[in-house]
């Protein structure tokens, strides 16, 4: 990788221009998933399981087919059997066979809301009437709704043929535990024996939802030539293509996916629910079919984030130095294997340099919807445990919580608990910034408390493509394949403009479909500005090398006799050229004379993603009469490597902080004993609203990532990791309680306060 550019040399990077798609999005012109229609289009609706777990005895669609306007009905038998195989792409684990069965149930329903049939009709009302007319006979089975029940030796099984993976030998009996994993280093027994203080607790987090405001939506058109087109709101158009092709057993070349604007995803729109069903309905009816989830369906039948149970033990000497850490970590996968247990195990001790540790993880099936990725999948649960315990340790040692963390922080050269040696990381810089922050010194009143917590995420690179087309007037169009979920067009335009030496406003950015853009992995893993940005920079450098060749040809000198300086091709010192330096526009105007249109491209599998650390400070006030928590002040400090567009980096930090505050204080799926979610709407599943919150203060730290030409590291996921413990630690400081189960809702806090009174 080329050397990082020094910050002071940037001309446009780090500025805050208006995003290229801004006008469309403030005027209502931008088209999202549900906004597309076609002539002759049908509307589809789903029949979903009324049981948490049941065998399907029979499905009778005769009466439903007779409803006027109904054109097609599909059930599990209309879908091919799909061979097992690890899902490639997307974000988060799972299996293709399971994905196909999740899209449409076959012999069993595995959670309340599982799709059983779908109808396409000339109106939504007709489709709904037909759904009500479908008769299904079920044989209800016992439901399993939590980790302890699912892991019990005599637990009812979700899948009779699922055997635990990751054990030394194949177990004799099937299980609800899909996978176990262990990660360890050093002598854990000796480490705990050496400790002066030991903290040992069990922490619980509930099932929560990403809560994107736009429900899943797609429009599919099948053609008699077996070419299909899908418009959908997704984080990964190429993932929708490959997953849908796999579920329907068709080739990827028979499917074009056109990504619409996307109304939030946070990891939840990295898989398929609707697209395969819409294509089959379109094939059977010969008409385009639109499927849009209701909000209730989003809660019941898309992929929430794992509930977790984590037993954590940490030991330290009197001086605060950690001696050993151990964790037993179980994550709910929902009805099919593939929770983020593995990244949870990998990151639970990542912020700390500890001589001995052991973490064991369990991927546990329960009768809930299959989980999907949610922003740093697995990490918020893991670090809620670690950072809660670190806070308790600081109080036991009577030590400043930031001081305790500084004493144990990983730094350059530390061996990460998950394997590699850290290089150029910002953990210490974030801690020091937090200690120096004015919000760390704000006086606190009665019933108020302050919490500190560290956040971490690995970040990923993966595959990206980019093309840059130069117009005849020297302006540029960037073509890439990552749906813009939070302002990434602005980052791409800034990087292209910086490289090409042209104004930001002269760069257009097109998020193209699967036939117009080169293959590109999902918008996820905090990878877009890092990896696709790297592709844009390389595509621009491809243009620059062509510009040098063309200028050299015009000047009749060798290409190595010219340089690219300040946005222009110039002759090297000593080269005798009687001409002014040539800009991109100068050469573009003469492209016909110099070899044709200018087109740059790059494709890569980006290595060198830099992990991002954060420190959050949270002040709360707890009402002792009601148990209600008010967040008084919140400060997010995070290493961005290099902030390409600082406003959108701050936006990631603020948005992630507030999602984490919601996870800490309010949000949870509430199930009845039969596995029916009782709060499947935004009234009862309450995400934070504007009046719940203060301003979210941010401080961007920039420790350049040596793995990126501009020093960029991903910023999108780390922000949600620290808030769970930062809020809980603040509540504990305010109340003297030691809360270990989220959410910290008023009834839970009130009960704990009552219990503490004795």
């Amino acid at each position: 990788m080329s050397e990082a550019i020094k910050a002071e040399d940037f001309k446009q990077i780090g500025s805050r221009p208006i995003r290229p798609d801004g006008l469309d999005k403030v005027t209502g012109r931008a088209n999202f998933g549900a906004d597309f229609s076609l002539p002759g289009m049908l509307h589809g609706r789903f029949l979903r399981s009324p049981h948490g777990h049941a065998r399907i005895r029979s499905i009778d669609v005769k009466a439903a087919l007779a409803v006027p306007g109904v054109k097609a009905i599909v059930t599990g038998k209309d879908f091919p059997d799909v061979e097992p195989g690890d899902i490639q792409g997307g974000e988060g684990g799972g299996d293709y066979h399971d994905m196909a069965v999740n899209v449409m149930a076959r012999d069993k329903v595995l959670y309340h809301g599982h799709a059983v049939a779908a109808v396409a009709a000339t109106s939504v009302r007709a489709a709904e009437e037909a759904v009500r007319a479908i008769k299904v006979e079920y044989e209800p089975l016992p439901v399993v709704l939590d980790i302890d029940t699912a892991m019990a030796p005599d637990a009812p099984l979700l899948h009779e043929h699922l055997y635990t993976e990751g054990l030394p030998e194949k177990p004799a009996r099937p299980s609800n535990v899909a996978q176990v994993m262990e990660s360890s280093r050093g002598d854990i027994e000796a480490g705990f024996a050496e400790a002066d203080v030991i903290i040992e607790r069990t922490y619980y987090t509930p099932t929560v939802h990403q809560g994107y405001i736009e429900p899943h939506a797609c429009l599919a058109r099948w053609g008699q030539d077996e070419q299909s087109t899908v418009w959908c709101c997704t984080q990964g158009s190429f993932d929708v293509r490959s997953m849908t092709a796999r579920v329907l057993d068709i080739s990827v070349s028979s499917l074009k996916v056109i990504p619409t604007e996307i109304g939030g995803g946070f990891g939840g729109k990295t898989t398929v629910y609707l697209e395969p069903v819409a294509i089959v309905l379109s094939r059977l009816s010969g008409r385009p079919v639109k499927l849009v989830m209701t909000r209730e369906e989003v809660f019941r039948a898309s992929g929430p984030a794992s509930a977790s149970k984590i037993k954590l033990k940490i030991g330290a000497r009197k001086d605060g130095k950690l001696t050993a850490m151990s964790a037993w970590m179980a994550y709910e996968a929902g009805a099919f294997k593939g929770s983020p247990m593995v990244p949870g195990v990998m990151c639970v001790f990542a912020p700390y340099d500890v001589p001995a540790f052991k973490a064991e993880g369990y991927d546990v099936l329960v009768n809930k919807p299959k989980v999907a990725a949610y922003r740093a999948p697995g990490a918020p649960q893991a670090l809620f445990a670690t950072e809660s315990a670190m806070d308790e340790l600081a109080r036991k040692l009577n030590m400043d919580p930031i001081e305790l963390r500084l004493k144990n922080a990983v730094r350059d050269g530390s061996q990460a608990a998950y394997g590699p040696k850290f290089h150029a990381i910002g953990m210490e810089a974030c801690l020091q910034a937090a200690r120096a922050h004015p919000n760390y010194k704000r006086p606190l009143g009665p019933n108020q408390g302050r919490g500190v917590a560290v956040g971490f995420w690995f970040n990923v690179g993966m595959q990206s493509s980019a093309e840059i087309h130069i117009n005849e007037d020297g302006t540029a169009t960037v073509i890439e394949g990552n749906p813009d979920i939070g302002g990434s067009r602005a980052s791409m335009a800034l990087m292209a403009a910086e490289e090409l030496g042209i104004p930001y406003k002269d760069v257009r950015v097109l998020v193209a479909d699967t036939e117009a853009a080169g293959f590109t992995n999902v918008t996820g893993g905090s990878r877009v500005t890092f990896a696709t940005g790297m592709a844009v920079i390389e595509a621009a450098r491809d243009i620059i090398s062509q510009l040098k060749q063309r200028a050299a040809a015009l000047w009749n000198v060798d290409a190595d006799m010219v340089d690219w300086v300040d946005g222009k091709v110039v002759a090297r010192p000593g080269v005798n050229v009687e001409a002014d330096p040539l800009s991109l526009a100068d050469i573009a105007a003469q492209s016909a004379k110099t070899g044709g249109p200018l087109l740059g491209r790059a494709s890569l599998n980006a290595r060198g993603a830099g992990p991002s650390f954060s420190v959050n400070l949270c002040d709360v006030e707890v009402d002792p009469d009601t148990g209600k928590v008010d967040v008084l002040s919140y400060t997010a400090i995070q290493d961005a490597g290099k902030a390409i567009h600082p406003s959108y980096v701050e936006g990631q930090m603020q948005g992630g902080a507030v999602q984490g505050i919601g996870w800490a204080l309010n949000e949870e799926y509430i199930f009845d004993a039969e596995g029916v979610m009782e709060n499947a709407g935004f009234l009862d599943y309450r995400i934070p609203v504007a009046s719940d919150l203060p301003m979210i203060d941010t401080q961007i730290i920039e420790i350049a990532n040596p793995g990126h030409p501009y020093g960029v590291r991903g910023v999108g996921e780390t922000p949600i990791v620290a808030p769970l413990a930062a809020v809980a630690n603040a509540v504990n400081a305010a109340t003297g309680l030691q809360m270990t189960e989220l959410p910290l809702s008023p009834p839970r806090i009130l009960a704990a306060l009552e219990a503490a009174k004795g």
Partner: protein
Amino acid sequence: MKQHVCSTVNGEPVEFLCAADETALEVLRDRLSLTGTKEGCGTGDCGACSVLLDDRLVCSCLVFAAELEGRRVTTVEGIATPEALHPVQQKLLEHAALQCGICTPGVVVAAKALIDANPNPTEEETRYWLAGNLCRCTGYDKIIRAVMDAAAEMRGATS
């Protein structure tokens, strides 16, 4: 039996036929092709479908289409003029106060209604007025700053 409704949408007279149980949101999006107004929940909890009904802020998913008879509706498409964005729209852009943009149409309409009703809102008033507009991306910080900035600019422009 469909109902025949005459209404004014974004200053223009419109006529449409609708079923008795059809919502204003469905008619705006599916019959009038005004897809700028979004459906996030259909139960009046998220504010993505906010419109002005005779200058009053409502969730269009909670209004029957038949209720639009003789009324004036303003949607996000009717906020800017051909010459310029509304200050709320301009300030949302300048403050980078949108990420995915799905809540933005509702926020634009609600914030315009706020400033029309209260040209000098405090931060607390702004937060409570916009409490019905869910945003999952921004944490609201930049939205609140943008709306207060727009109000300040409009006060300057009109004083």
